[in-house]
């Protein structure tokens, strides 16, 4: 995926959050830091920074999720709790009272816990829990303050009247409801984790761990406070630090969960490489199971002929009819269905992951289809090349026959007629006419001879009528140098095979005469297995180059059209050997 404009914008926001968050935390905690010992104030500062920092990273890395911005917001809200220090410093009851807004950070935290990593409250119960939390933080938490002022200078603006008894009862109610709510939230998250499939558990796991850690810590601290009313300052500081540690673990856990999801995404790359080797639907499924950690994942490949999706084992893959926790991602190319993946619905939370998987799977399926297409086209091209060759051979044979039956016959008749005339004039009554006749007769015979050579070059009749052995013999007889036929098959082959073998020998012998400066050549044609192997070797100068002459190039095409191969071995000074291997079955 390209670093899109969205990603770049998210990174800028994350940077801005870190800078302003740093300043904001320092500003709001400033009076706290000034008036309290460092072991109280610094952890407070760190908790906020932890939220802002983790949020900024999450924002930059996963801009499509709301988790980053919410964690950052949580960090900003956290520092509002410290405003009361400024209230005291500036002598402002308003600021002092506004410090209560800081408790809203709990609302954001609970929302994150209940929804992570999606941005929706998954059930009616979680929605109820969320709104109860809002009520708790906004109303119940502030009720004790209506009847008691814990500020040193009467700064509590919520105070109606001083009634320690009422305040005590309300504080008890608040404590009890808060505890119940906290437990309910934890139970809900555990339940969600329990019902989740493996991919979702991986993401939710760290958050759950941090939640449990916090419940444990708070429980321990509350229990300790209740059991030991008289505590040393050391113990108070230590327990305070442990509580802060728990708070810091929460943003870290959110970030951890996101990063685990991210690891998975990094493996999509490997997955593509994995698949490239042999992209079958079954391998695609295996690879997807590995990458997504969803053992129940199914893959359907769209079969246009059947107009439906089929799984690797050929059973129908129904795109609709999906259980609530399963989702189907369709693979499409230019709007045409290619395949479909049924997977854990939790995976949809990671839009980028699903996109990456979709792209990779599409690539794999497409690659398979393209390979198949290329193979198919290659077969078609091969078939058409063989057809063209056959058609050309048929045409050559036809032309040869036309020449033989037409012009050649007429020239034969002409020669005969001239011969007859000559014999009639044999008495020598008119020597001038006799000479002219002889000349005409010679011309006619030469024309006939040339025409025969031409016809033979187009397609030798002997090859069609008598077969390869006779045709090779003829070639050897007509060659400019002595040619030995060391072996020639007595059986007949398909016309195209015989023609290819014949023309290879003819062209090779022509080349021998033209370039090789050889004294002799040997032709060998024999059947080896299901191939006809034709070898022409000479004792000439060598150094022939297939690329040089169009003759050999054309022969290579002819032989390859029959799925055979032509090779030329021609070392300078060591003669030339041309070998053609032609499948006899074609």
């Amino acid at each position, binding site marked *: 995926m390209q670093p899109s404009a969205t990603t770049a914008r998210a990174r800028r926001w994350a940077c801005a959050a870190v800078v302003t968050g740093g300043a904001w935390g320092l500003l709001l905690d400033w009076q706290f830091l000034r008036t309290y010992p460092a072991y109280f104030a610094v952890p407070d500062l760190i908790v906020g920074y932890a939220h802002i920092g983790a949020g900024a990273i999450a924002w930059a890395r996963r801009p499509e999720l709301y988790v980053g911005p919410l964690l950052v917001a949580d960090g900003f809200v956290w520092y509002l709790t410290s405003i009361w220090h400024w209230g005291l410093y500036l002598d402002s009851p308003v600021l002092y009272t506004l410090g209560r807004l800081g408790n809203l950070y709990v609302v954001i935290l609970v929302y994150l816990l209940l929804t992570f990593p999606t941005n929706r409250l998954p059930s009616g119960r979680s929605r109820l829990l969320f709104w109860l939390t809002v009520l708790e933080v906004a109303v119940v938490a502030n009720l004790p303050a209506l009847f008691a002022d814990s500020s040193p200078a009467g700064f509590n603006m919520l105070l109606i009247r001083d009634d320690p008894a009422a305040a005590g009862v309300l504080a008890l109610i608040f404590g009890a409801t808060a505890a119940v709510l906290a437990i309910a939230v934890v139970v809900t998250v555990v339940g969600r984790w329990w019902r989740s499939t493996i991919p979702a558990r991986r993401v939710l796991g760290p958050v759950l761990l941090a939640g449990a850690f916090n419940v444990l810590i708070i429980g321990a601290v509350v229990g300790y406070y209740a059991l030991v009313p008289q505590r040393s300052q050391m113990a108070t500081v230590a327990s305070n630090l442990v509580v802060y540690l728990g708070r810091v673990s929460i943003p870290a856990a959110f970030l951890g969960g996101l990063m685990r999801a991210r690891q998975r995404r990094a493996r999509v790359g490997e997955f593509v490489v994995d698949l490239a080797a042999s992209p079958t639907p079954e391998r695609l499924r295996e690879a997807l199971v590995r990458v997504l950690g969803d053992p129940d994942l199914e893959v359907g490949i769209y079969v246009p002929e059947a107009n439906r999706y089929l799984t690797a084992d050929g059973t129908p893959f129904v795109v609709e009819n999906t259980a609530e926790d399963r989702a189907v991602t369709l693979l499409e190319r230019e709007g045409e269905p290619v395949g479909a993946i049924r997977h854990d619905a939790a995976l949809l939370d990671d839009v980028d992951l699903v996109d990456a998987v979709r792209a990779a799977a599409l690539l794999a399926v497409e690659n398979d289809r393209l390979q198949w297409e290329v193979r198919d086209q290659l077969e078609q091209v091969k078939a058409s090349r063989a057809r063209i060759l056959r058609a050309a051979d048929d045409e050559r044979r036809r032309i040869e026959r036309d020449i*033989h039956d037409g012009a*050649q*016959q007429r*020239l*034969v008749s002409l*020669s*005969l007629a001239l*011969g007859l005339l000559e*014999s009639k004039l044999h008495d020598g009554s008119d020597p001038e006419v006799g000479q002219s006749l002889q000349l005409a007769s010679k011309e*006619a*015979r030469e024309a*006939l*001879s040339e025409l*025969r050579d031409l016809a*033979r070059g187009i397609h*030798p*009749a*002997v090859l069609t*009528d*008598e077969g390869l*052995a*006779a*045709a090779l*013999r*003829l070639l050897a*007889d*007509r060659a400019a140098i002595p040619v030995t036929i060391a072996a020639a098959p007595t059986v007949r082959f398909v016309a195209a095979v015989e023609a290819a073998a014949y023309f290879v020998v003819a062209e090779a012998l022509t080349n021998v005469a033209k370039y090789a400066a050889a004294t002799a050549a040997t032709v060998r044609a024999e059947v080896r297995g299901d191939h006809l192997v034709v070898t022409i070797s000479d004792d000439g100068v060598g150094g022939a180059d297939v690329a040089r002459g169009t003759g050999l190039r054309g022969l290579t095409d002819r032989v390859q059209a029959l799925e055979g191969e032509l090779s030329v071995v021609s070392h300078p000074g060591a003669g030339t050997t041309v070998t053609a291997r032609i499948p006899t079955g074609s």
Partner: protein
Amino acid sequence: MIGEAADAASAVCAVRDLNPQVILLDIGLPDGDGITLAEHFAGVADPPDVVLTSSRDAGEFGPRLRSACARGFVAKDALSGPAILTLLGPNT
């Protein structure tokens, strides 16, 4: 010349009826080939001398022509009484 035949079948009949001394036989026949027919004639009682001819030249028939049961081959364009007589030899 004592007879003529347009194809292999009628040639066989003609040879049986006329019992010729010499046959000028075209290799390219409409219903067969002269080389095979010459073999047949070589097998009859008192076999005639066969001279093969064709509008193609000798080389185009390969080794079969060389081993044919005939006195020889004259290309059609070179056909003449003397050419045939040369092939048949002095004892005719």
